[in-house]
């Protein structure tokens, strides 16, 4: 982690006046410029960010600043910011301007955060390498031959390369945690129903969750706490009280599980497995009860995820019709052609693949065998997960089976889909989950993360235990 580009390490400097917010914004802008070739940002709001920094410097002087005064944030290009361009990295939304801000963004702005730009991602958040963007791939800042992971690749690179303190991403099957693992940042997906999805471009509505990338667990906790909680524009939000996540000093974790099938998975890199095993031994020596549990659905997770998310995507993406907004085909005659040609010209290949798959599983004759069966399997997976959390406080394991791979190395869609094998679990079951930096691999010196999953709405324990865990990782 780049400690010096976390907000938690700089907050005191802002408050004392030794570092102005304007200086901080300028140094991020310089870094963005310097590493422009990474293609992390689709647009940088330089003037606006400097103007706002000056205002916030005044507020700090007057002592009436919000909790995020001085924090500089980048937004994945699927999270709305009023009056700014908004594309989900798709050609179909070229030129689109957002008419409102996401609830999550509103809440950050109310606490005096600064939005510095919008970040590249896989088109409509569909991908695991950030190679599916209509605006070109994002490079991993640690080694530019490698992908940063996806779909929130721009977000993790912006944070990892020190271009902003925090970036927002969205996680439907691992799109926050997998890139965090590939780039050495903290990536946090809260419980489904904790953060309003209002203003997030829907991919799969029963899976999608907004969450942060950061260089410290403190930052992840702080922004999450501010973004969480009731919103009248998202009826799926939980009524549960938002805990004080910023207090990371105490947790109540005693019993920890790890999934046998993951540690027996042929796809898991041997070195990553060995390091995870050593960490488990260390936790035991620190007094935790760490035990193996069986989760016999590992090879069913990704198929279940694809049946259900593509079905939801095919429905959600039907709104892109070439009439109300976005790209309209110049070659179309009549309304049916407007739909077909605008969509066929505007969407990229992976998005079309998923719309076709989703339409197939929902269509007459295949619905019961695929979609309905997928929903039943989802219940089986959720019930089994709940059963594990009746006996354990936490599930620990590798975030990803390997480190980042090289660009253009994975061409087969299914091989790419299997990148998410350890992360989709918590999206299917709705649990909160985090990836924190763990080690660098001896073969390519690229990082990989450790993943923790907690029971529903137990983010406080999840973050406090992550903080503890980060102190025992050497």
């Amino acid at each position: 982690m780049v400690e010096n580009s976390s907000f938690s390490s700089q907050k005191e400097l802002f408050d004392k006046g030794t570092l102005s917010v304007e200086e901080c914004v300028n140094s991020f802008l310089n870094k963005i410029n310097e590493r422009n070739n990474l293609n992390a940002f689709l647009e940088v709001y330089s003037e606006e960010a400097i103007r706002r920094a000056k205002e916030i410097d005044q507020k700090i002087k007057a002592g009436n600043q919000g909790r995020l005064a001085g924090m500089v944030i980048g937004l994945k290009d699927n999270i709305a910011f009023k009056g700014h361009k908004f594309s989900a990295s798709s050609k179909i939304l070229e030129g689109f301007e957002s008419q409102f801000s996401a609830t999550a963004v509103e809440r950050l702005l109310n606490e005096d955060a600064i939005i510095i730009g919008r970040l590249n991602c896989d088109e409509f958040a569909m991908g695991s390498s950030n190679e599916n963007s209509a605006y070109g791939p994002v490079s991993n800042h640690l080694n530019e031959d490698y992908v940063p992971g996806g779909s929130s690749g721009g977000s993790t690179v912006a944070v990892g390369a020190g271009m902003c303190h925090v970036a927002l991403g969205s996680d439907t099957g691992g799109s926050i945690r997998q890139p965090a693992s590939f780039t050495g940042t903290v990536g946090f997906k809260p419980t489904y129903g904790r953060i309003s999805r209002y203003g997030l471009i829907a991919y799969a509505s029963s899976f999608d969750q907004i969450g942060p990338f950061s260089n410290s667990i403190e930052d992840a906790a702080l922004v999450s706490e501010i973004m969480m909680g009731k919103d009248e524009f998202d009826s799926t939000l939980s009524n549960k009280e938002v805990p004080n996540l910023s207090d990371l000093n105490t947790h109540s974790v005693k019993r920890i599980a790890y999934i046998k099938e993951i540690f027996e998975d042929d796809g898991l890199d041997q070195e990553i497995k060995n390091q995870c095993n050593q960490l488990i031994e260390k936790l035991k020596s620190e007094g935790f009860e760490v035990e193996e549990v069986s989760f016999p659905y590992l090879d069913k997770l990704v198929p279940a995820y694809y049946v259900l998310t593509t079905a939801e995507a095919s429905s959600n993406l039907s709104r892109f019709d070439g009439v109300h907004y976005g790209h309209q085909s110049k070659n179309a005659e009549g309304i049916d052609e407007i739909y077909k040609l605008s969509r066929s010209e505007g969407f990229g290949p992976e998005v079309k693949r998923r719309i076709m798959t989703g339409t197939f599983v929902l269509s007459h004759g295949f619905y019961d065998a695929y979609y309905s069966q997928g929903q039943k399997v989802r219940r089986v997976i959720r019930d089994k997960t709940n059963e594990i959390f009746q006996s354990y406080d936490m599930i620990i394991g590798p975030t990803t089976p390997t480190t980042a791979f090289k660009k253009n190395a994975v061409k087969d869609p299914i091989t790419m889909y299997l990148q998410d094998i350890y992360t989709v679990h918590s999206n299917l079951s709705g649990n909160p989950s985090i990836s924190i930096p763990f080690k660098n691999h001896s073969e390519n010196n690229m990082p990989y993360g450790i993943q923790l999953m907690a029971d529903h709405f137990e983010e406080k324990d999840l973050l406090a235990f992550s903080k503890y865990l980060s102190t025992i990782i050497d």
Partner: protein
Amino acid sequence: MQITDEIIDQIAELAKLKFEGEEKEAIKGDLNNIVHFMDKLREVDTEGVEPLISMVEDENDMREDVIGNEISKEAALKNAPSKNSDYFKIPKVLDKTGE
């Protein structure tokens, strides 16, 4: 389960997408592989299991059905590719030359 040209045509029509030539062959091949991959789900015994339809444990929390958060007509039409002052525009739907 084998994905045929006929299935591709039918699904593409429902999805309002158009595939021709090489692109059609590619999507057929991909869909075949993906469907085969999803067939793994049949191995799970779901006898007597109800489909999980909603991830919300309590009931959905609806706000009062009153008009609020309006955006102006101008804002609503701002991103339309083709419009006049009041409406979204589409090309002619009725073909007057007849059939």
